[in-house]
């Protein structure tokens, strides 16, 4: 009987070995780090650059369970809540405005003629270059950070929604009109509902850059948040804080992405089945 190769060649069928293969790079990374940190500590006992896993676990346990004396709060959770709040707030506003702009730009030529050049202009501004302006104009509070995240993601979302709306066949519009829909009915009751799942995938993509702007803003002006904690730890060379925090941010990003993906297939079964078919 023919047995396909496990790993090598274009006919490979990894099947059961899939999980082992997927775990391999992670195992190598973790093992490599563990060996390196042990060796460094053997050479210099107060080594700070490569904390051992034990040190990191201790620090994180302290940050996640003990109330900080200065702040009077449990730092990890305060930071997480503050950061997620800013992130979701900025992205939520960006999604709402991007949806409205994108759909209307695609459907109404007059709207497009008015706003498309302006939005193209704004979208070319590097958002990070605006940090100083935002901090001076809006202060060091929450508004400036949320605005930066909003500004960094709204144009990507707008453009994605705009293109997705343009890609809906004109036949759908004509069909709806022959069914007696009004112009506004076509745009907001036929086109818009079809675009919402697309908005969710646009948000999933935009979350990557949203994290970037969040961390950048928190490193420059904040008194809490995951990015603030990392920049503080950098000044004190507390690598045992930085590594776990980076990992925690990655995990949060992964969780948000998974939630949005599940939400899409749960709320919009037609969208998922449509995708899996093509």
């Amino acid at each position: 009987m023919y047995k396909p190769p496990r790993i090598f060649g274009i006919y490979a069928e990894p099947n059961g070995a899939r999980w082992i293969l997927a775990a391999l790079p992670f195992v190598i990374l973790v093992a490599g780090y563990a060996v390196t940190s042990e060796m460094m500590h053997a050479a210099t006992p107060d080594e700070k650059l490569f904390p051992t896993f034990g040190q990191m676990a201790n620090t994180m346990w302290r940050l996640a369970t003990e109330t900080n004396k200065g702040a009077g709060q449990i730092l990890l959770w305060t930071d997480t809540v503050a950061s997620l709040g800013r992130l979701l707030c900025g992205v939520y506003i960006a999604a709402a405005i991007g949806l409205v702009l994108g759909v209307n730009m695609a459907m109404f030529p007059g709207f497009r003629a008015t706003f498309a050049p302006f939005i193209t202009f704004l979208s070319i501004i590097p958002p990070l270059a605006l940090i100083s302006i935002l901090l001076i104009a809006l202060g060091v509070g929450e508004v400036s950070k949320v605005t930066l995240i909003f500004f960094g993601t709204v144009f990507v979302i707008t453009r994605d929604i705009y293109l997705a709306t343009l890609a809906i066949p004109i036949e759908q519009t004509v069909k709806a009109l022959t069914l007696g829909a009004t112009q506004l009915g076509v745009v907001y009751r036929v086109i818009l509902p079809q675009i919402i799942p697309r908005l969710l995938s646009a948000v999933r993509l935009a979350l990557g850059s949203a994290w970037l702007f969040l961390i950048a803003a928190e490193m420059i002006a904040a008194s809490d948040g995951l990015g603030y904690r990392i920049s503080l730890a950098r000044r004190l060379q507390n690598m045992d804080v930085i590594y776990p925090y980076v990992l925690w941010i990655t995990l949060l990003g992964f969780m948000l992405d998974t939630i949005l993906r599940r939400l899409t297939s749960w709320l919009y079964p037609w969208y998922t089945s449509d995708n899996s078919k093509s």
Partner: protein
Amino acid sequence: MVLDNIDLSVPPRDLTAIVGPSGCGKSTLLRIVLGQDTPLAGEVFVYGDPVMRPDLSRGIVYQNYSLLPHLTVLQNVLAGDRLRHSVFWRTTGEYRAKRDEAMQFLKKAGIAEHAHKYPAQLSGGQSQRVAIVQTLFQRPKIVLMDEPFSALDPSTRENMQLWLLELWREYQLTVFFVTHDLEEACFLGTRLVALSPYYTDDRGDDPRVMRGSKVVMDVPIRHAGRISPPSVKETAAFGEMIEHVRRNAFDPTHRQHVERFELLYQYSWHTLTADESHPKT
């Protein structure tokens, strides 16, 4: 120029089949009637009223994309009624009555068991059945069909053709059916209109003469109301008719002269522009 001086009227309860070689402008003509495209000149009338943009008076069944992908089959059939009412209409008794009516229609079309599926989950034939139900449910004055069965496999296609004929007779539909398939046109139509860019006229042979497609043939096929069994496709007369249309409309080397076009249909009439009847010297 795609279409040249088309003058065509469709009497009620006719099933007019439009054929022509690919790229001759059949679909353009349909889109103009529908209001999806705007002609450079000319007008479209439905029962004497000029119409412009797509509206309730003309229903459309496309080859694809007729169904709204985010609605179930039942919701698609009800889409027209829902779009004409506010979002709260769904809570009224009127809605429930409509919904039962739609379910009855779907049952008659043999697709009631798929009522709660989404379009992406349907086969090609099922989608087109739903699309036709969706269109007829609004009772349009004229039903436009743009190659509705062209993507279906032959046996499904024949079923759909027979089903369309049944619907046509039962609801006394006025249908404007565009297809590139001569056999389908000759089988379904009560009237066959052939559009073609292959003809000559008094404007001479200069390639700079922009000759759009014209109606080069317009013939009655059978008496309205009589449905032929599919076996008619095997008969010699049917074959001859197809050959005849193919020669006069599809053959680029055989060009009829404008004045000799075969327009036997009782309602057809055709006019020449001043250019054509009085060529410039």
